[in-house]
């Protein structure tokens, strides 16, 4: 303990990239994520957003929870925990997964990296140690290690991201397909690169030992100098992920283990993640409940909305009619999308009312006066932002 600082144990941890980020955080706009000091934005949210959409940006994902799951039973253990079939994940591949309570309510989502037949890495937004410990109980050979502080991770997202990595000397990175993992020697260490991200665009996530994290940052920024590389924070991330229609904890879903009120959490079906639930698997935790949910149909369905006008429908209720007599849902995230040039939102809508008319009641402020309007919403089936380059291999050079 630091004797000169009585609050030493309470202070936010600094990410291995902090020294560089501190210099760039012109506005001193720091927030916290899982105990780490973490940029809300660096200079300007819109500016950072446009970098991600037009050039590329780096987003510090050190605070994201990382667990190493290792042992002969690692695969069986994970396969019973998550709804997807883990046995189908190839070596050096990543899979997006969700895991649920026995009642089929979603605890969290995350990604599973298959690093060897008996070694996996699980990443997720919130600490999951207790659930992993419960999930591992009873298996003869599996260890779960929290490696959050042992791995520095940086997300590089945007159309020039592949070009930057190539310039940095990562030969062959352009052959990586979405959800592939590649390894490169780096300063006597190994740099792991996965073609993953949270922006809905071309992008990669870089995983490295904290000891060489700053070297990675410097090399990346040297290589990216003419490719518009910039750091971006939580605010811009939230914009890009909404355009990609990715869900965010405590916005689209409430982690089931932290929810107090009955069914104020969600099921994968409600979140449009039914495709992650593999009933061909004879068993996984929550299977019986989810099978019933599938038969019955989800109470709510997360819906992508294109909303008339340009006023973001933040916190709006969704109604069945323009007169707002029948409330049928609520908006979880909303924004004016600069790239799509549309007023977009995600909303939880009672499934039985999905097919009918949808109206949002939007409150907004103009020079200290409050206004409201009721506008028509149109359901969208595809993500708002999904450029072909995000899936192309090799990705086009910028």
């Amino acid at each position, binding site marked *: 303990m630091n004797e000169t600082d009585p609050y030493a144990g309470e202070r936010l941890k600094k990410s291995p990239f902090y020294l560089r980020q501190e210099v760039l955080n012109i506005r001193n706009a720091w927030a916290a994520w899982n105990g780490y000091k973490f940029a809300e934005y660096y200079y300007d949210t819109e500016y950072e957003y446009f970098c991600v959409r037009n050039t590329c940006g780096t987003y510090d994902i050190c605070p994201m929870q990382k667990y190493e799951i290792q042992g002969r039973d690692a695969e*069986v*253990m994970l396969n*019973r*925990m998550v709804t997807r079939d883990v046995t189908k994940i190839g070596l050096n591949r990543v899979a997006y997964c969700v895991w649920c*309570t*026995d*009642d089929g309510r979603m605890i969290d989502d995350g990604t599973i990296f298959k690093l060897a037949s008996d070694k996996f890495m699980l990443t997720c937004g919130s600490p999951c140690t207790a*659930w992993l410990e*419960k*999930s591992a*109980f*009873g*298996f003869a050979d599996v260890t779960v290690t929290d490696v959050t502080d042992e791995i520095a991770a940086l997300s590089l997202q945007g159309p020039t991201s592949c070009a930057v990595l190539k310039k940095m000397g990562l030969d062959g990175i352009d052959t990586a397909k979405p959800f592939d993992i590649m390894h490169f020697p780096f300063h006597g260490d190994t740099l792991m690169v996965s073609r993953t991200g949270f922006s809905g665009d071309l992008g990669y996530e870089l995983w490295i030992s904290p000891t060489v994290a700053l070297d990675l940052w410097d090399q990346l920024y040297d290589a990216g100098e003419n490719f518009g590389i910039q750091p971006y924070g939580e605010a811009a991330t939230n914009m890009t992920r909404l355009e990609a229609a990715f869900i965010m904890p405590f916005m689209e879903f409430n982690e089931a283990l932290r929810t107090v009120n009955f069914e104020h959490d969600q099921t994968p079906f409600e979140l449009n993640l039914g495709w992650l639930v593999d*009933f*061909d698997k*004879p*068993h996984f*935790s*929550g*299977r*019986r409940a989810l*099978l019933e949910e599938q038969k019955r149909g989800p109470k709510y369905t997360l819906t992508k909305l294109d909303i008339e006008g340009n006023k973001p429908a933040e916190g709006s209720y969704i109604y069945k009619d323009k007169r707002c007599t029948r409330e049928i849902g609520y908006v979880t995230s909303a924004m004016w999308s600069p790239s799509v040039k549309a007023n977009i939102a995600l909303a939880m809508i009672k499934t039985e009312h999905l097919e009918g008319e949808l109206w949002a009641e939007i409150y907004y402020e103009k020079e200290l006066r409050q206004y409201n309007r009721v506008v028509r919403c149109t359901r969208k089936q595809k993500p708002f932002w999904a450029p072909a380059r995000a899936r192309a291999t090799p990705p086009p050079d910028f």
Partner: protein
Amino acid sequence: MASYDSIIIGAGHNGLVCAAYLARSGQRVLVLEAADEPGGLGADREFHPGFHTPIAHSVSHFSQKIANDLKLTAHGLGAAKPVPTVGLNTTGAHIILQEGSLSGAGTDDTRAYREYSRLMLRFADVLKPFWQKTMPRIGMNNFSDLATFAHIGINLRRIGKKDMQEFLRVASLPVRDLMDEYFDNDILKTTLGWDGLIGAKLAPRSPNSAVLAMLYRLAGESRGAHTIPVGGVNGLIDALSKSAMASGAEIRCSAEVGHILIDGNADGLTAKGVRLANGDTVTADRVISAADPQRTFLDLVGVEYLDIGFTNRIRRLRCDGYVAKLHLALDSAPEFEGLQQANGRMIIAPDLDAIEFAFDHSKYGECPDSPVMEIVVPSINEPSVAPDGKHVLSAHVMYVPYQLKGGWNPTARDRVCERTIDTIARYAPGIREQIVHQEFLTPADLERQYRVTGGHWHHTEFAMDQMLMMRPTYEAAQYRTPIPGLFLCAAGCHPGGDITGQAGHNAAHEILR
């Protein structure tokens, strides 16, 4: 086609009861028992050549309905008379409870006992329908579930407002509060309170389920008095085995089950049979486990087939046993100070504090300095369990922890065994000279030898959070389990432990429904 309709794992009394009912209904039933004879904790044990006793040495509330249904008398079960319950006193001023009457206590206590017994028996009757039925599943409001609740409700209403209020007040009272309220005599208090505590991790001052456990035991036909069947507890096991076999059930001993086979495909999981420890597999349409819940789910099924929350509720069940077993082979009848014949169920616990202190040690993984216990000399009622003129003394020694600090070893076992014999010698001074052979089984020994988790008599603690529709835990409390085709039928289910046959009966009823 599967070889059997039902496989039952374990030929303890509940397994046998369940087997008998299923076989009577026409099912092809196979009972697999790891030991070389049926009976589980009720099986005969020859602990010294010619000297026999089961672990469970008496029967308190075996269901008369089951005895009738399964025609146990026709299968050799002799009529057993209730034995007196005796609270031993070193001075010879014993408390004797026999056929509803009390002797040895003062006038006030004797008068108080009449009111106490009236009330307790009344309460026991209120709860009676609970023990005999499958518990309603919370949230499932079908008619029979609602009827069970209604039955209890009506019973409660029938006893009148005053008694009903009193019932609600005492149901979770610590034993000590209840006893202090009614009685002065220390031995009377320990003797009456004993049945709320035996087998549990509870002491007189613990609130929770002691009074409910007493009421559970008072609900039987003998109103709490224990019986020693003709032929000992083994006589009951014999009759159950014969009844089951007469109906066509097959009982295979020395057949330890290694795994429950679970079939998995896109339709989910089903139990389809068992693999024996010797590698053989036997298939059946359903598997019914009379093993304890932890053993069943964690060892025999395996967590990979269970939901994570469910697994962890099973894992958190309190299964540590606190009862050890002392067996003495004696060359003559033991003589207890002031007692004509040691033909009762004798309790050694000088006062409620003595029980509490013994418990305090065990809470911290230590053995009590002065153990408290229940003694039976089965050879007095059933001479066949010992050679001519010789005797067997069997004691349930309370608060000997399953998890001893530093672990169990022969020295630790000998130490608590000697302390136990010393304690008995205070009441039966000549006992040491009569001992031909002694055997002491700790809960850890019971676990190993009888394959019951924690050596726990009741498979898992009989406590409010593990009772009724929570026994062993929700989603497995109606004898069905989350895995189709897998059932439970023993003490880890509602209504709980003791030799009652009720869990086996209820499970069979549920399976045949």
